[in-house]
């Protein structure tokens, strides 16, 4: 420990940077985080909210139009039965993976740096799953009977068809959504109580009071809370793997060249984590700036996430090359054609956008300077978001557009409605997100306090030393 005193902090290894900077104590941490939800609503928020709600309105309009006219308002056609709706679904679901991964898996692995970002990431997860959930619902031809996908006892005496991956999807996604909401909410209870206690108006007191579930911070509360949180983390962890595995079964279980492949479950899960982290970055970078949370979401957090982006991006790239190898190695001429066609056919533009964004752009993170550069990471995270959308586009559309019989091949073009529906889903996402930023504790306050030096017995003896966080 004496060594720490003699060495200047700059020479320390990056993980030893403090997880909370700015010399906060508990009170100032509480103040900083709560202020986000308590201060006068900034004008910028109103502007952002107005934009988000406009897009949400667009979503409502285009969905109404879709329901009125039929799925034909989209660009889907005969060979390409699934278009942007399914691409968007898989993309949003993938984004939804980061939250649970950060919240649950990193929790179980005792990665304390997660605390600053997990609330945020979980919120993002839930909103992303909400966006994702729209698409399977509205993409069916007869929305009014979509409930037949659920195993509801009915007078027809008919069950869903349990061999269909779409049905597995229904279970997987609904389970995931439920658990994610619970996990997020349970983790938020102590912080809601904080907001309740700080509330200055009766309305806020009552509202937060209801959701705080009578939290008093007693030891018994803390005990139950910790157990519940651990259990939920345990339940969520396999879901991180299962949801996207099941989503990938939609494709892998089919017979289509380009879909029918065993690599899909791990490849999809990895891609999901990749895109999820990218989206967390995209949202976190501006948010920490605007809401003054730089002390809690430090460059160290961002750098850690960039490392994960680099790693998962490499795995995604590996999956791409494995697909090609297997297409060649299998000797299946349909499979071979599909992959060559992807890279060189009429959809090559989409394929190469995917490769450049997902495989090439994260390679910048091999360099520490770039890994710690806010502009670079922001741009790369957006690239990855784009690239992952195109990955799903490539998988869904190119495989369908040219499968077994050349006579049925056709080109898919999206319609304006496709585009507006996608943009509209951002409206939903950001509306929810802005409400979250305005009314809920954006950081897991209770957890952050637990990793602050003050939470430790020997706090005060080594004020400048943050090594405890990694103990």
């Amino acid at each position, binding site marked *: 420990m004496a060594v720490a005193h003699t060495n200047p902090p700059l020479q320390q290894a990056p993980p030893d940077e403090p997880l909370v900077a700015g010399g906060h104590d508990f009170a100032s941490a509480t103040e900083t985080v709560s202020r986000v939800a308590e201060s006068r609503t900034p004008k910028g928020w109103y502007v952002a909210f107005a934009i988000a709600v406009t897009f949400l309105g667009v979503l409502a309009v285009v969905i109404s139009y879709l329901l009125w006219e039929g799925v034909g308002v989209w660009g*889907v056609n005969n060979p390409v039965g*699934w278009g942007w709706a399914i691409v968007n679904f898989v993309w949003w679901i993938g984004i939804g993976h980061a939250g649970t991964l950060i919240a649950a898996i990193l929790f179980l692995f005792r990665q304390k740096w997660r605390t600053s970002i997990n609330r945020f990431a979980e919120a993002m997860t839930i909103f992303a799953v909400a966006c994702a959930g729209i698409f399977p619902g509205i993409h069916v031809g007869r929305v009014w009977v979509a409930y037949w996908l659920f195993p509801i006892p009915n007078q027809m005496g*008919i069950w869903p068809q349990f061999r269909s991956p779409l049905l597995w999807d229904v279970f997987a996604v609904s389970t995931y959504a439920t658990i994610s909401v619970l996990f997020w909410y349970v983790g938020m209870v102590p912080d809601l109580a904080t907001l309740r206690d700080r509330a200055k108006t009766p309305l806020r007191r009552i509202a937060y009071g209801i959701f705080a579930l009578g939290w008093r911070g007693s030891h018994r509360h803390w005990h139950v809370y910790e157990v519940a949180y651990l259990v939920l983390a345990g339940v969520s962890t396999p879901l991180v793997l299962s949801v996207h595995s099941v989503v990938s079964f939609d494709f892998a279980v089919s017979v289509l060249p380009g879909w029918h492949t065993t690599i899909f479950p791990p490849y999809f899960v990895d891609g999901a984590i990749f895109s999820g982290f990218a989206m967390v970055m995209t949202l976190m970078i501006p948010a920490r700036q605007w809401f003054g949370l730089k002390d809690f979401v430090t460059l160290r957090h961002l750098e850690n996430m960039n490392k994960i982006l680099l790693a998962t991006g490499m795995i995604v790239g590996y999956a791409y090359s494995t697909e090609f190898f297997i297409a060649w190695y*299998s*000797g299946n001429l349909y499979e071979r054609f599909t992959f060559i066609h992807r890279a060189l056919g009429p959809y090559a533009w989409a394929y190469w956008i995917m490769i450049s964004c997902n495989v090439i752009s994260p390679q910048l993170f091999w360099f520490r300077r770039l890994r710690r550069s806010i502009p670079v990471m922001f741009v790369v995270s957006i690239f990855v978001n784009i690239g992952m959308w195109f990955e799903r586009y490539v998988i869904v559309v190119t495989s369908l557009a040219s499968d077994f*019989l*050349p*006579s*049925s091949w056709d080109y898919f*073009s999206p319609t304006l409605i496709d585009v507006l529906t996608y943009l509209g889903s951002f409206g939903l996402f950001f509306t929810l997100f802005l409400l979250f930023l305005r009314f809920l504790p954006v950081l897991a306050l209770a957890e952050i306090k637990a990793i602050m030096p003050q939470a430790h017995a020997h706090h005060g003896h080594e004020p400048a030393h943050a090594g405890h966080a990694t103990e």
Partner: protein
Amino acid sequence: MAHAPDKAPETLGRGLNERLTDAHGRRYWRSLDELENTPQFQEFLHREFPEGAAEMLSPFTRRAFLNLMGASIALAGGLTGCRRPEHKILPYAKAPENVLPGIPKYYATTMERAGAAVGLIVECHDGRPTKIEGNPDHPGNLGAVDPITQAEILELYDPDRSTGVLHENRPATREQFDAFARERFSELRRNGGAGLHILGELKSSPSFRAVRERFQADFPRSRWHVWEPVNEDNVAAGTALALGRAAHPAVDFENADVVLALGSDFLASGPTWMADARRFARRRVPEGERPMNRLYAVEGAFTLTGAMADHRLRLAPSQIPLVALVLMNEISGGENAALAGPLLANVEGLDVAWLQAVARDVAAHPGRAAVLVGAEQPPAVHAAAAVLNGVIGSECVAYRPYPNEDYGRAGRSIAELAAALEAGEVDTLVILGGNPVYDAPADLNFAERLSRAAHVIHLSYHVNETSRHGAVQWHVPRAHALEAWGDTMAFDGTVALQQPMIAPIYDGLSDAELMALLGGQPLTRGYDILRAFHRGDEAEGPAFEARWEQMLHDGLVPGTAGTIAALGAPAAGSASVGAELAEAASAAAPTGDAMELIFQADHHLFDGRYANNGWLQEAPDPVTRISWDNAALISPATAEALRAPLGTYINIEVDGQSVKIPAWTLPGMADNVVVVRLGYGRADAGRVAEGVGFNVYPLRTLAGLHVRTGVKVTRAGGHFDLANTQDHWSIEGRPIYRQTTGALYAEHPLIIKEMEAETPSHNGQTQPFREFEYDGEQWGMAIDLSTCIGCNACLVACQAENNIPIVGREQVNNGREMHWIRVDRYFSGQRLEDVEMVFQPMPCQHCENAPCEQVCPVAATTHSPDGLNEMTYNRCVGTRYCSNNCPYKVRRFNFFNYHEDYPDLLKMASNPNVTVRMRGVMEKCTYCVQRIRRDQLRRRGTDEPYREGSVRTACQTACPTEAIVFGNINDETSLVARAKRLNRNYEVMGNLNFRPRTSYLARLRNPNPELEA
């Protein structure tokens, strides 16, 4: 791999050829878009949202389209339910004894189009005709039925058909017309009909003939003209030249070993093509009693006949007379050598060795070879063919005089009328059907000259361009053939009776009724006219009644078959034929500056009279797969020279007339030849036809009815988005379509089976579940690619039988056509110039391991106990997962509520035994499950077993060549089971373990060994 063949054209063609010769063995590729790097294709690659944004509008346009149709609900409002034929009718107050609701009735009838008669069996539900099938006893079609005739059902219920009398384009009453007619015709009668002209269509009907003769007797100075834009004038003139009398060459294909077609598309057009194709196909299978026939085709366009040919020579139509001359010289022993020699010296590129080999083959089959010539060829070539068929003593070509003298005088006749109009001799003109303002030869200026007639009466099914013409005083609605009494005569003399299935919906008159009315004849009702004619001198009474009933039942008049005797061998004039032929053969070959233009009747719209028929508009052209529009077809080299890739507008100019039309590249066509299809670009056809296609009649003159030479073609710039139902791409060497030669197949019987791809096989994998055992019937289908001619009869039959909606051009362009059976077209060959074209009908394959069934989350598509892959529409939620997982992509999704806006009148065309699907559900071929279940219901409670043939699918029934066989595969003796045991039976992608129930019999060709090398 630059094995570019020596004759490859520059750049575009060469690149293509390289890519073709690349592949090992015979290889098919689809259409040209992918191979060519056309700007359109480039745009394809780079297009993103802008194109998509435009497509956003498609639902509106679709709605506009349907709303247009829906607008006529008001017009249809006069309809009250179902009506039954007059004179046979009893009110439903007492249930008719032999009518069971839900059980269709079938009636025999007949129809004719341009003087060609077919026999029909019409299915009627509650007095409402819904489906037309062929009458096997009729010589015109032998039970087959073509797309157009089937679509007459839709024609009958066309909401745009004429609904009442018009006087100077304003609604009038029948009484007003009758009053006018009485006054006018009694005046005309006083001067013997001077100044009275009648312009009719070509009709074989004997009873109409009687009315006409009586009319002409009453009005002796009247003149009767006929006009048909699609006619056999050249055939008639040529046979008259050679045989002394105009005659129809009737070919007995079942006895023809070698067939040589010179510019003739006898398999898909021509008056008797259905019967011809059926007979021809019987000699195309190796399993027949007699060896396979051999077909040579010489043509400038690429026709379905050319696709079927074992050897094909692409040659501009102007050069075909020379071919005839060479053949005549070769076959008839140098008689015309003196003529042929000097001409041949002038012609480069004519493959004389090829022609000599053909001539040897023809000569080697004396009596069993037939030379056929297309209507496009000048009379001399027809005369030459008649002489040639005489020389080789062909027993399989019978020259039968036409049913009446109107055949062969269409061009002459309308020219006479035009001259009379010009001379102001026409006081009253009665136009019976037809649309001369639209389709008369352009150089007659018919529309302008029509104004010189004082009174014009137009009997027409539609209010068309002619009805709208300012000179037309009266428009009278014409009855549809399914609404009127009448008869027809086939080319062998067989008389068939036409009986109505429904009372005239809009009180239309038949031609005979109108002429009888105008002529003041005693019998003016169609039924009376027909009955009186066929009664002749026989007394009314039970004997005649029984005979009459029998004739109506059979649809045929007994004792009339074969009454037109064939003419003997060419009397004389071989020398004069030679001279005429030599003159025709001296025409210069087309060049880039003076191209040749071929007019072809459209496969679906014919001469344009069916332009308002949605089924026909949407059925893709068999050759180009373009639906809803026509294009100018040119060869790849010509396209390259014109720099006119797919869809680029070109200007076709001849004698100062010019037409702007998008170009479409079709490999296998002769260079510097442009093929256009008639019947598009109608101005007043109705709402379906509005804005569809390009009118090429302005280029068509009396002398150039079929072919025009010296045509200047230039690139006009701009692009038109043609709705092509099958886009592009190479077939990538996939063993989807298989073919070989008859000789190879005989030598290596397993050759077809061995063509399976090098793809790993999934067959024989153990199933995790028990195999289902089929103890009763198990349905299956086999489609013979050797005989499929790609004519679309199955496609339209399926559309009619299964209430398949019309979706419109925008939706087709979007890849959303609904046809349950499609006809895939592939090209094969080593060189782009001399490609082969093959067809593969693709309905649902009814897989045993159906990929669609596995993935439906709601069990809406399942297996029936008799092996059908069934769709339960009510259960479908529309995830489209089944379609995605269908390797054959035969499932069709209702992207919109296509049936929602159908007007009531159109709804009457629906088959009540087939559910009309709403939006959001998937649909597909059911193997006509309604027919299967109807047969099973009929047998229920009895011990009667399933009998072969008691269930026939709609496509099977319509198929002219009997290429589709359907039946019980559990019965080893059934036709389909026997077909599936053949060595040339294969399953498409059979190695992927889907176990389809539809299988294909590989295509066999019968090439001439001498030409194979």
